């Protein structure tokens, strides 16, 4: 597989949210605004790239039977690093994402990529895979966040373009499912065409 398709598969063909449907808990939880979605996506991207890099580096040194605990420790360490760094330098974003940052540890995409890709491929491909998957995730979350923000609050990236409130349901959990469902349908159509 060449490196370009390796990178771009995360956006459309194997998009973690729209196609693989992985990591739905943060997807539905944080995407009340586009900024939150993108922030969450970028935090996950960092964890994905770093854990893919490390897992691919040590893939031969880790005995098969303990690979999952080893991967989880690596992932959890990077998540904690992200958490502390965000708390220190972007406190506002940290507050908005709150509980969902520690939950990156159990985001299926991160462990999924470590297990399915990084533990079998070279360091270079693993980094590119992590980057593509992570940015694909950020793109999906940003898109879902934008749709929910436009419909739910009548704003985009925090700038209000209508007076008053939007459709409240899109800020709440049911709206997340509805918006995600339609986005998946559109992506499917787009993929076939």
């Amino acid at each position, binding site marked *: 597989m060449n490196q370009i398709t390796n990178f771009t598969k995360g956006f459309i063909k194997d998009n973690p949210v729209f196609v693989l449907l992985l990591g739905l808990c943060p997807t539905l939880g944080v995407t009340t605004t586009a900024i939150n979605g993108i922030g969450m996506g970028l935090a996950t991207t960092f964890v994905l790239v770093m854990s893919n890099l490390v897992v691919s580096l040590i893939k031969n040194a880790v005995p098969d039977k303990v690979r999952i605990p*080893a991967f989880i420790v690596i992932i959890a*360490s990077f998540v904690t690093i992200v958490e502390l760094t965000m708390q220190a330098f972007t406190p506002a974003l940290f507050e908005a994402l709150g509980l969902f940052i520690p939950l990156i540890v159990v985001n299926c995409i991160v462990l999924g990529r470590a297990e399915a890709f990084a533990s079998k491929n070279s360091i270079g491909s693993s980094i590119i895979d992590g980057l593509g998957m992570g940015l694909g995730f950020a793109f999906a979350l940003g898109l879902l966040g934008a749709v929910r923000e436009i419909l739910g609050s009548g704003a985009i990236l925090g700038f209000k373009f209508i007076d008053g409130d939007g459709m409240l349901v899109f800020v709440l959990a049911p709206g997340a499912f509805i918006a995600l469902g339609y986005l998946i349908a559109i992506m499917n159509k787009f993929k076939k065409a």
Partner: protein
Amino acid sequence: MAKKESSFVNMVVTLFVITIVAALALGGVYNVTKEPIAIAKRLKIERAIGEVLPEFDSIIETKILPEGGRDSLTFYEATKQGEMVGTAVRTYTDEGFSGRFWIMVGFVDGDIISGTSVLEHKETPGLGDKMEKKKSFNKKTGKSWSDQFNGKNPMDFTLKVTKDGGDVDAITAATISSRAFCDAAQRAYDELKNQEKLD
């Protein structure tokens, strides 16, 4: 390099090394970020105090556990050039629609509410979160829901929603959140009075 065999020694050594390296890395990051995190938290508190009190230049912090309370309130006595400006109280309620939330209430001239600000909450977006200043800001009147508390003395301004016989206009469709907000403010006021008596 061939894959390592899953022998007992190999597994123990591998996990040991990984956890040691992870622990060292986290310790390092923690040390680097400790100070910025403390500063960010401090700034947040100071900003919240600034929102509820007039200008000040120094604060004295005391934590007090009210009688029968489940958590302690924090009193911030603000002074400007040695003169008392007012007291900001970090207070909470357990009556919220989604559990406990924290607000800051500022008192000037003894017991007059100078302002309120929501610190952290989990209330429903679009309904209960209108207790946040910027969420309920009305461009026409230039006022937010929580502005109705400003300049009121809880002695003659009953901190209860009108439905319960009080003086507070509840947020539309969020009576529980409004009630909880009043509960938190009342708790701050009661403890403030209590402290005055003790002094």
